[in-house]
């Protein structure tokens, strides 16, 4: 990054008044492979089709130094980087992608995935409830690292266009805030070729006119631009060079769910062992639903037996809930009926999600004003302050032989 750019973009600059985030996974496919097999770390990893007509799907940053990039024919990549580790995809990147998008959705419902490895988030509405854009960006980056062993780069700016440029300028494993007060200073210093939304041909024409960076572009009026690139193109460039990008972050309508599961070190023989774990999972799922402002009507229990046979059982509640105790009541009922053998893995999922603020909470007649939900909210706060596990249900205290994994977000309902 040019040194004078650093005055206008960086992790510690002001995020006042801006709330559009662009999150881009770093060398996504290659990083997923490295997370799966840590012995690959630090090596030039190239995920590619290995047949005679194969192309590179992704290259780690180590491999990129040899000029290997995606869409390069594998044969060329082999010549450029003969000692590279060439592998074919081993896991479903889409699954990982879904899980990561689900993390984003815990912070805001306004998530617009644009491919498997990048998404726009509008977190401007989350400032008071969850935190500033920078705080959310740090939390997202940390969770993606902790839960998936992957790094990502986040750009934060006032528009989608600029947020994307901000993440590009901060790669890899970076965080770039473009403060609104000096956003044009940042934008105008970028070379025209690097600007997203300006095609190869257009960039060539502009270069021939002696325009090098976006600032040169901004100094031209629309008519002069139109002479070079046509009316439509000119208006587009004019808007881009002034950071005029009114496009909102459009959330993709997806079947959302929040889930968590636990694998036992030794198969759990009966409900006295898996029951407390299911309660804790239910509480965690509820806690995450509350944090994200969701409530759900569907409760699904997943059970994998010792022989790896896996079943799921679902129930629809009468009213949407974000209370762990209520999720557990349904989940326990389902699990009691279904767990006919020792259990290797147990999981619970809350789906048919709705925005809690939009639907309110249908409590039972005469239900006290302060019930389980308040208890769980207190636990949320205590855990936020003193760390996870600061408050746990008594039933879990004497069970050192099982382990509750971090609940995995995802939307397996396809």
């Amino acid at each position, binding site marked *: 990054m040019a040194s004078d750019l650093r005055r206008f973009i960086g992790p510690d600059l002001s995020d006042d008044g801006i709330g559009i985030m662009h999150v881009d996974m770093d060398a996504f496919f290659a990083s997923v492979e490295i997370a799966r097999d840590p012995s690959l770390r630090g090596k030039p990893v190239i995920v590619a089709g290995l047949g005679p007509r194969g192309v590179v799907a992704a290259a780690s940053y180590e491999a990129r130094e040899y000029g290997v990039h995606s869409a390069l024919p594998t044969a060329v990549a082999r010549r450029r980087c003969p000692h590279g580790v060439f592998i074919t995809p081993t896991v479903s990147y889409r699954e990982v992608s879904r899980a990561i998008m689900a993390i984003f959705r815990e912070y805001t419902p306004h998530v617009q995935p644009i491919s498997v490895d990048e998404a726009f988030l509008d977190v401007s509405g989350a400032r008071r409830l969850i935190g500033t854009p920078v705080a959310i960006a740090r939390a997202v980056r940390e969770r993606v690292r902790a839960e998936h062993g992957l790094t990502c780069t986040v750009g934060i700016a006032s528009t989608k266009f600029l947020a994307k440029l901000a993440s590009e300028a901060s790669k890899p494993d970076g965080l770039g805030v473009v403060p609104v007060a000096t956003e044009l200073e940042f934008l105008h210093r970028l070379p025209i070729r690097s600007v997203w939304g300006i095609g190869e041909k257009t960039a060539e024409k502009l270069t021939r006119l002696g325009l090098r960076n976006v600032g040169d572009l901004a100094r031209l009026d629309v008519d002069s631009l139109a002479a070079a690139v046509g009316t439509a193109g000119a208006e587009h460039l004019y808007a881009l060079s002034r950071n005029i990008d009114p496009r909102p972050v459009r959330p993709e309508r997806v079947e959302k769910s929040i889930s968590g599961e636990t694998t036992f070190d030794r198969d759990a023989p009966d409900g006295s062992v898996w029951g407390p774990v299911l309660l804790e999972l239910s509480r965690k799922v509820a806690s995450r639903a509350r944090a994200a402002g969701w409530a759900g009507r569907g409760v699904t229990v997943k059970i994998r037996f010792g022989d790896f046979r896996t079943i799921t059982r679902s129930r629809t509640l009468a*009213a949407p809930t974000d209370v762990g105790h209520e999720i557990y009541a349904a989940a326990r009922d389902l699990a009691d009926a279904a767990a006919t053998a020792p259990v290797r893995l147990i999981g619970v999922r809350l789906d048919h999600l709705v925005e809690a603020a939009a639907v309110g909470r249908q*409590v*039972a*007649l*005469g239900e006290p004003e302060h019930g389980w939900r308040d208890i769980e*909210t207190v636990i949320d706060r205590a855990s936020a302050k003193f760390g996870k596990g600061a408050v746990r249900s008594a039933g879990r205290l004497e069970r050192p032989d099982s382990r509750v994994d971090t609940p995995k977000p995802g939307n397996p309902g396809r």
Partner: protein
Amino acid sequence: MKFQVDRDTFADAVSWTAKSLPARPSVPVLAGARLSVDDGKLTISGFDYEISTRVTVEVTGESAGTALVSGKLLAEIVKALPNKPVDFVVDGPHAELTCGSARFTLPTMPLEDYPSLPQMPEAIGTIDADEFARAVAQTAVAAGKDETLPTMTGVQIEMTGGGIGMLATDRYRMAIRDSTWEPGASDVAVTVLVPAKALADTARTFGSHSGPVTIAVPQNSEGAPGMIGFTAGGRQTTSRVLDGQLPPLRSLLATSYATTLKVRTADLIEVARRVALVGDRNSPIRLSFDEDGLVVEAGGAEDAKASEGMDCSLDGEPGKIAFNPTYLLDGLSAMDAPYTAFKMNELGKPVVMTGQPAPEDEESDTNHDVYLYMLQPLRWDA
């Protein structure tokens, strides 16, 4: 076995029995209607171990006997017959039905596999059929449909020397209806929890026959009665009863209410239905009221939104309250009164709905206090 019967009489009887037969019987014979002829009478019965039905009609030209045929099929056939006498003859594995020039042959089902119907227990009192139908309909609407909470799927019938009360709840709303009846003895004190759906079906069909409905409950005094029976106009039905009892619902009623909002029932139903169009069944319907009137709203933020104002009379503080639209409309539709009063205390506490006479008809002797519907408003947590 054979008989001749009037087409309309036969059609009524068969369709009534067939209605309570299981769609997917656990044993094939349970889909059967049992026809039994003796001494100028035909008895048609059905039973699925939960509900039994029995109806007796007059026939002519009979020879005694019993047969079991598919109830649904028989009902379909009889409904389609021309209005002429129906002849029914059973010959071995087949039953033959003729009516005018139409002729049907049906297979019969093995009688030896068919369970014997429960005996009608001892009568403990009678209630007017129309009143019975109304009371059941007004309470069954609040019963739960969640089979995992079986207690909540019932209507609790409380019968005493002083009256008969029906109660139901699905935890989120409840309905209570008090009626008068003719108890068999002044010291009757029986409470039964009857599956709401079956009860509602029974009450509806009995309601079209004016006259008394006889209620019968076994008097074995040992725990739950196990079943309940109803008889009216040649029709008998028994139902299994549910275990357990509803929570003490009457104790949820407050002794006084700070605010009363009165609206025209039909107007609010119309407005609420219209406004609810913008949401789904879980989208709240919001009521804001003050001296100037009532505004009903739904939807909002990024979704479609609707609002409509209407007249109301308010006694108390202006306020805002939100309900699940289905629960609200269920209550209003059951109200059976020209006006509805919403009685409220502080926000978030259950709201009671009762019927009210029209203002121009305050002198009417219709007692609207016999029915109340209580529902829990939606809450928003900080």
